[in-house]
């Protein structure tokens, strides 16, 4: 692109920088059969794990929030729970409810961005959301307004929308008044209605016939659809305390990627995220969401990753409804946080980021300084499952020219909403045909 005026030189600009992670996909095809699939991604948390060493336990929420511009709350929540586990602190009552509520805001923001700006254009045959907006401006406007309401929740509780600063180990620096929360009620009621329309809109999209026999892994709580707490369960019998994560899961080095592939020990790839949560926790959804799921034709179970767009819409509906429930029942806490006495310890935190479970583990010394940090983001856990999906899906599209093949591959990858900074930023496709 060129530009020229009195203060400007002329240059070619290919894109503005947002290189928070980049990826490449290699597919090898022989005699119309796929013989190799390698998804290559670069993964930030390794840098942050080293960066955290030697810092105070209290620095973790602010630093890890900067790993991802889309899901900072997830990083904050997993880190504060891990630190509280290490330091023997329990946060309950209104503070716990506020944590669920800020997570509602993040799910709304993240899911709506993906559903409207990234995933819906695939199904409607548009190259991108900009093209879709030319034909359906009202659809995109609704999506943007819905996302803005998620932003408002995060901003009120997090102090600011980008890199929230109000979350701390033990609670919040400042908690909202009842009145501040109630001011969000009308917008959230509109959001809930619009989320229900979004479920209906996404349920009407055309879906490829593609189901796989996945092992879904998600948190499960006795009473709640999971955000912050629960046991780690799967549809193949896994049922463990989060502190046993490293005993049951392993990260495997693969030669084609700097990211590690997560596996369940003794088994193989697994699937985290909205589809896993939904399949494992359908019975924890309120009647309103279950009814919408019934209407959408995926009552109780969904194994088609392309239909994750419907599940994201259902979870958006849930997040709006849950935020309204919390506002309605909210009593202002006596103190904004539980006091902390630093000491040595080991702590684990696992919460449900929009894209799936995000595991943190910290070792602290007697002053509360971080000796060791471990962060396992959802996208690296899904990477092997994405490769497996591509392996099966590419064969169905084997006769397509490379540009169409890329489109299908991107769509299959997009089912997992790979995180902007946790994995793929832009994808280069390399198909080798023999």
């Amino acid at each position, binding site marked *: 692109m060129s530009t020229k005026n009195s203060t400007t030189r002329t240059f070619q600009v290919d894109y503005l920088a947002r290189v928070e992670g980049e990826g490449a996909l290699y597919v090898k095809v022989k005699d119309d059969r796929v013989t190799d699939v390698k998804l290559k991604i670069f993964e930030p948390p390794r840098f942050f794990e080293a960066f955290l060493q030697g810092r105070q336990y209290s620095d973790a929420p602010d630093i890890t929030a900067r790993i991802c511009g889309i899901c900072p709350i997830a990083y904050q929540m997993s880190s504060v729970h891990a630190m509280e586990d290490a330091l023997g602190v329990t946060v309950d009552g209104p503070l716990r409810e506020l944590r669920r509520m800020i997570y509602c805001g993040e799910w709304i923001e993240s899911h709506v961005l993906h559903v409207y700006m990234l995933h819906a254009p695939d199904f409607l045959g548009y190259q991108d959301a900009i093209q879709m907006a030319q034909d359906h401006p009202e659809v995109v406007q609704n999506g943007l307004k819905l996302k803005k309401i998620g932003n408002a929740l995060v901003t009120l509780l997090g102090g600011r929308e*980008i*890199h929230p600063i109000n979350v701390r180990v033990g609670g919040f620096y400042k908690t909202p008044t009842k009145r501040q929360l109630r001011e969000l009620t009308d917008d959230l009621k509109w959001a809930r209605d619009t989320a229900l329309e979004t479920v209906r809109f996404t349920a009407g999209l055309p879906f490829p016939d593609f189901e796989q026999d996945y092992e879904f892994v998600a948190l499960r709580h006795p009473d709640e659809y999971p955000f912050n707490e629960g046991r780690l369960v799967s549809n193949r019998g896994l049922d463990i305390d989060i502190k046993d994560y490293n005993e049951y899961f392993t990260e495997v080095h693969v030669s084609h990627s700097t990211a590690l592939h997560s596996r369940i020990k003794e088994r193989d790839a697994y699937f985290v995220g909205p589809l896993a949560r939904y399949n494992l926790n359908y019975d924890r959804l309120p009647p309103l969401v279950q009814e919408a799921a019934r209407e959408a034709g995926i009552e109780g179970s969904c194994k088609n990753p392309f239909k994750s767009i419907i599940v994201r819409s259902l979870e958006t509906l849930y997040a709006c409804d849950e935020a309204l429930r919390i506002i309605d029942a909210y009593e202002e806490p006596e103190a904004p946080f539980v006091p902390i006495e630093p000491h040595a310890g080991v702590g684990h935190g696992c919460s449900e980021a929009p894209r799936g479970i995000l595991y943190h583990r910290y070792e602290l010394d007697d002053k509360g300084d971080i000796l060791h940090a471990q962060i396992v983001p959802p996208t690296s856990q899904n990477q092997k499952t994405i490769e497996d999906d591509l392996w099966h899906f590419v064969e169905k599209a084997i006769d397509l020219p490379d540009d169409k093949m890329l489109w299908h591959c991107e769509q299959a990858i997009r089912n997992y909403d790979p995180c902007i900074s946790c994995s793929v930023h832009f994808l280069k496709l390399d198909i080798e045909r023999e």
Partner: protein
Amino acid sequence: MNKRRQQVLCIGVGNEFRGDDALGLMVARQLATRQIPELVLDEQSGEGAALLQAWSGWDNVIIVDAISSGNAPGTIFRLDAHQQTIPTDFFVYSSHAFSVAEAIEMGRVLGQLPTRLIVYGVEGARFDHGTGVSSVVEAAIPELIARIEAEITGL
């Protein structure tokens, strides 16, 4: 709204843990020390929907971001969003991004662009993990700030 007509919103975009991508945030923070009466500052990660929201209601907006275009590191760019299309071909190859360029083009389609929207950028040398920008980008910052100040006071 009158106040917003007289003032300029400058949005620094970036990630301070990704090398030269910290540029936009550094420039915003340095501009904050200049005490320019017409200037209001904001920082953003570059997520496009948030950008559309950030400039909503503003007439005069300047975005500062790092550029990765293959030109010489340290090169300063100035793009006028109303005079040219911001390239989004990158979007097609993206699996997640809805970022600065996409926000501008979406704003154009939806009629949500500020009356005046200027993008300033500096070509970066490195975008890997780490804090602090490369010396060639740091060397370009004083000229960039001088040009942005001239842009604001000349409005």
